[in-house]
């Protein structure tokens, strides 16, 4: 009972990843999104789960940690074509503002790159890619909330 109560108070911001290949959805939860970094979990359409972490550069983390986030972002985002798939062109020095890396522990990894985030109102968007080459659009935000 105590454990249940503790779990239920952890703020979890929902996000959806829309597959651009097969129209399926992956449901993601970002823990303590208002803080700007934390754990992340995902549930695949078939029910399998992934876990990992996320961080955004505009969160409430200390300046030192923010610099580390930006360094990580550069490493992660520049490996792929995230910027072009998202909608920027090559003329833009697009800066991703957040990322998440999730894994199912059995070989499937999912990299989320965020290009616009508001941690106060808790919404944002970006693109994601798994290590099987599938692309997704990310929409963060609680659609039930007014």
């Amino acid at each position: 009972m105590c454990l249940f109560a503790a779990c239920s108070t952890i703020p979890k911001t929902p996000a959806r990843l829309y597959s651009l290949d097969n129209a399926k959805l992956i449901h993601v939860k970002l823990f303590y999104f208002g803080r700007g970094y934390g754990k992340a979990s995902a549930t695949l359409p078939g029910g399998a789960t992934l876990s990992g972490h996320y961080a955004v550069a505009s969160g409430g983390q200390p300046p030192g940690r923010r610099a580390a986030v930006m360094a990580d972002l550069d490493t992660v985002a520049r490996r792929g074509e995230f910027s072009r798939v998202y909608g920027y062109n090559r003329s833009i020095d697009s800066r991703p503002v957040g990322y998440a890396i999730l894994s199912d522990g059995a070989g499937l990894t999912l990299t989320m790159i965020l290009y616009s985030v508001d941690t106060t109102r808790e919404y944002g968007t970006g693109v994601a890619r798994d290590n099987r080459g599938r692309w997704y659009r990310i929409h963060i935000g609680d659609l039930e909330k007014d």
Partner: protein
Amino acid sequence: MAGYRPPVLCLALAAALLGGCAAPPSKARLYNIGNDMLSTARFYQLDRRYGRLTLRLPDGEQLRGEFTLTRERAPAHSVPEIVRLVISSWSSKAPDAGLSGLPAAGAPDSMAGAFGFKRGDVARPAAVATAVGDRGTAMEIVLYTLDLRRAEGTGIAHDNHGNWYLVRLGI
């Protein structure tokens, strides 16, 4: 006690009706550049900056999804000239005017390229929307211009069947 129920029900009904009336969806047209077919999307509560989206394709497939406004502010001059010309020639009575000659004809390799942006142009997504249908269609929409106050915008869309669409929000 039973006498209190009808007023409560009436109030609930009135609130539901008012709530529904207070936020009419913002409509967008999607012009399939390959076959000139039209689809209509509805953005619900656009001013909330993220929310639900519905989209009906010409074959009847119903898509559901969502939109998210970004924190980018695209300058007006960033719209490619060809798109500006085409869009300015549109009206609700002649929605397909001037579709020929669009840059997206062929097989563009990116959303920005399909919208007609060239090297040196400023392509910054002002809003992103995604919707999926029960028959397996996935649609991604990127608006490159957006006037939130007037609920107007322009952009490009792409589906997983290889179709490209020019998008106009605010019809």
